[in-house]
């Protein structure tokens, strides 16, 4: 098994997905099965191969420095849980809210 329960806990924390303590063993087993299967790549010699990140053979397009977007706080906040709006009558913007963070 390539993955232990502590590793499951660590990556679950990194991914911000709660995995209950009594579920870690099963998850470790499940993920290990997949990881063991992908390990077959190790048998390939890739020492002289460049990694491929994209199959597109064009140069990254660049846009002009113009303000063409934004200015619609109401739409940005429309789907949010518990937003706080500055005004109830006009779109003066507003805030998303999250549980209080202590820095």
């Amino acid at each position: 098994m390539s993955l232990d329960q502590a590793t499951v806990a660590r990556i679950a924390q990194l991914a911000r997905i709660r995995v209950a303590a009594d579920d870690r063993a099963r998850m470790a087993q499940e993920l290990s099965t997949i990881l063991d299967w992908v390990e077959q790549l190790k048998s390939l010699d890739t020492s002289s191969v460049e990694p491929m990140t994209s199959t597109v053979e064009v140069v990254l397009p660049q846009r002009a420095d113009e303000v063409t977007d934004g200015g619609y706080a109401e739409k940005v906040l429309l789907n949010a849980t518990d937003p706080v709006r500055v005004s109830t009558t006009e779109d003066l913007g507003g805030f998303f809210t999250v549980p209080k963070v202590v820095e």
Partner: protein
Amino acid sequence: MILEGKTGKWEIVVGLEVHAQVVSKAKLFSGASATYGGNPNAQVSFVDAAFPGMLPVINGFVVEQAIKTGLGIEATVNEVSVFDRKNYFYADLPQGYQISQYTRPIVSGGKLVLDMPGGATKTVGVTRLHLEQDAGKSMHDQSPSKSYIDLNRSGVALMEIVSEPDIRSPEEAGAYLKKLRAILRYLGTCDGNMEEGSMRCDANVSVRKVGDTKFGTRNEIKNVNSIRFVMQAIEYEATRQVEVLEDGGTIVQETRLWDTARGVTRPMRSKEHAHDYRYFPDPDLLPLVLDPKAIARIKGEMPELPDAKKVRFVEQYKLTPYDAGVLVAEQEQADFFETVAKGRKDPKLAANWVIVELFGALNKKGVGVANSPVSAANLAGLLDLIENDTISGRIAKDVFQIMVETGGDAASIVKEKGLTQVTDTGAIDAAIAKVMAENEAKVAEYRAGKVTLFGWFVGQVMKSTGGKANPAKVNEILKAKLAG
């Protein structure tokens, strides 16, 4: 700077990471406005708020700004660079990752020449400059149970400029930031305003015994928003580390916050999780490939930067390196000086007036050169009056005071107040004769050998002419008359 500890001498080692907000109209990867302020979340596009299916498209002007800055710090502009995702969760990071550049930045290997007191210089290496997105803003004081999130800053273009650990004192750190800010402002790539957060600095600080070649464990100090605080934070942190080490402790690598109110650094509570940013190339963006011709064009359009200007000022205007350094620290100062000094026989006079009188007056008023009540043309007019003997240097200072208060031009003030210098020898002769007649005893003392009285006679003559007599002429004639 060397710290004297109980066990010996310690050296401070500092590397600085500066986040400079790129001057641009729109954000790095979206068309939303990048200007400061605005209603909360009003300068946010669906891209900035990371809505499903939204994609980044890079702002070409921001790329140019980064190239310009790279050339300004004499660095290599890389023809191919790559955008990576730096993955972490935070409330003001909507994508759950920051688009940044990790292994292949747009600029690498530059340097900054620091101007130290006394005219000395020190060169500090710049490891790299890369482009990345700013995060939004979290506000923690609005509600007892919630933090508020404003994404107006989210996606604004930043240049992260990382120095080599070449800095050895708080003063050098200050000089580094001043020089970097000057270059950014000369280039117009960042406004350098630390208070508004458009230039932010993290300091990596460690200490080691003098003579050691290995670096000590460093701490990163975040949240420092002025050059003065950076210097204080470094000094505090280095001293703290020496104390810990000398008490037999060890330095744990951590991120610390500068607490402005208390003047101390303290560990950050919210960063307790081990970081693992899982960088990988952003599959929504292709590698950034720059046209060498575009780089060459930008190079051709570069303005004269502080170091080159300083050299030129020393050569062209015969200034001391120190004076030249003071003048070139801000482009507006340098431009002001050049307007005043243009075509003048004695440019050093112009430098003195700008540095001593003008900067002194501006300091007192708390304004910058841009808002100077005395325009460069008006100061030049004043110096013209000195150089053509219309007024004396002393009178000029009075005139200058009036100019500072009223913003008027020198010639009008001199005319209005009748301050024109008396160079007519007849008038001076008469004044001298009068003074000598009224002070016969003193004349006798002088003639008996008490030559130190000469200054007193000059003063009396100047007084009787209301300070308007040409001092050189007064000296000349008085000397002859007293000699009998």
